[in-house]
């Protein structure tokens, strides 16, 4: 029996696979009217509910949005940031942005500025940019803000003392913060959990890349994390929860096509392998 077809099924040229992958991604991008069944996962719903709870119970409370992502994880973290900031502004929640990555400060600022114009957010009154701090200062800054936020951070990104802004009125320690949102592809959430959430019991929300997410399910189970947006699927979930479909929704559709393609390729490869093994067995050969 001709074995070549079964061999080929196990060793498809990777260039064809990449081409098929790009086609699978492009179908949902070009057919934007395709309706995708996007059911938000429980961690995303919990994330949304925590923000809603802040809006309902502490309307003048302040939320910290800490970004540690850069252009290398833009595909996931940018859309999470956009969906989260949109929700905060829709519910008119005050927030402060903080960055521990050189690129993140500019990238987050771009998103916030564009949305601030749309939702009429006023700098210093509705939101504030606490600016960039070097990654090496991450632990000392978190230890400092536990007890003294204005004394630790001192100035905003333009050099103005943060205590002089109306938004900072009554905000001195983390105990005055309504929730903390960490958007990061790294394990920086560990430090927030250990040095801030564990001490003050402040609701902590996490938006990681999908690759980092499985490690943190245990923290959801223990209640240390109040919600989690998992990668671009999380961004899509959030967009559907706030009824503002954008890239995340379309990317979730594209992901479904990609997963279907991968499953198909796994099946094709296994059929080839099993068929060759059956042929070898019938011919009395130990290995195909």
């Amino acid at each position: 029996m001709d074995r070549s077809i079964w061999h080929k099924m196990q060793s498809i040229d990777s260039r064809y696979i990449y081409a098929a992958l790009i086609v699978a991604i492009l179908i949902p991008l070009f057919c934007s009217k395709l309706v995708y069944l996007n059911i938000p996962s429980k961690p995303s719903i919990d994330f949304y509910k925590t923000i809603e709870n802040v809006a309902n119970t502490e309307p003048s409370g302040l939320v910290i949005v800490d970004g540690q992502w850069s252009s290398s994880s833009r595909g996931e973290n940018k859309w999470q940031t956009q969906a989260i900031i949109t929700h905060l502004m829709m519910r008119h929640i005050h927030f402060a942005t903080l960055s521990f990555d050189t690129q993140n400060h500019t990238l987050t600022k771009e998103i916030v500025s564009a949305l601030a114009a749309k939702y009429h957010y006023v700098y210093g009154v509705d939101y504030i940019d606490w600016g960039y701090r070097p990654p090496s200062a991450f632990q000392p800054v978190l230890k400092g803000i536990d007890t003294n936020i204005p004394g630790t951070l001192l100035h905003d990104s333009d050099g103005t003392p943060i205590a002089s802004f109306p938004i900072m009125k009554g905000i001195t320690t983390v105990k005055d913060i309504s929730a903390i949102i960490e958007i990061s592809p790294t394990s920086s959430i560990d430090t927030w959990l250990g040095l801030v959430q564990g001490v003050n019991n402040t609701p902590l929300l996490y938006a990681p890349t999908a690759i980092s997410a499985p490690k943190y399910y245990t923290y959801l189970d223990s209640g240390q994390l109040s919600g989690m947006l998992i990668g671009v699927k999380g961004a899509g979930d959030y967009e559907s929860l706030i009824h503002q479909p954008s890239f995340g929704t379309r990317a979730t559709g594209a992901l479904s096509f990609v997963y279907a393609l991968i499953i198909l390729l796994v099946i094709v490869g296994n059929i080839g392998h099993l068929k060759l093994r059956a042929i070898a067995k019938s011919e009395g050969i130990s290995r195909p």
Partner: protein
Amino acid sequence: MTSAYLHHILNPTLMFGALGTIALLSLVFKENKLYRLFEHIYLGLALGYDVEITWTEVLRPQLWDPMVRDGQWVWVLTIPVGLMFYGVYTRRFEWMSRVVFGIFFGAAAGTVFQDMCQRFVPQVRKSFKPLVPPPSAPGDIHSTLHAVSYVLNNALFITILVCVLTYFFFAFDIKNKFLLLMARSGRLVLMFAFGALFGATIMTRMALLIDRMYFIFVDWLQWAPK
């Protein structure tokens, strides 16, 4: 093709971004010089950007300006302290680096201790899950179902926890058949976890590719609808 469209796709920022994306993705088909060129451009840009931000956002406002503009010359003392780190490169001044490293290690150890306790103690505490359901809420018409699912969930959690912990008994040889079964089951559920990790890895990689495709076909070429 309208002039507005041409003006858009010939926008240097967008065009350079698109060219960079195509060049870097071209590696999957074949190693080539265009890929190498953009790889170096990307690395150079990222490093240059880091240096610029470190100066404008950290060193100038927090060290240079307070000294030169505000006359707080006490900050100059931080420079010799920083230079003490470099004592590690000479035998004569090695002791200097040990002083600053010692201070940093002490501070870091104290912080890490607090960090570990605050993160893992709640995990251990929450792993003691009850197998007796709590009293049902008044008016709950599915109280039996909720109680059964509560007990099953917790029983499953405890079983998996114990099995996985048994798998990590490497200090002595397990001969008891029941313990061996538990250890094997622990290994099996670990495989499930690794499978989930692999699935999540694919999601991240694909999300990055989808974002780049979106940039090329939606933002730049505008072939696909916004």
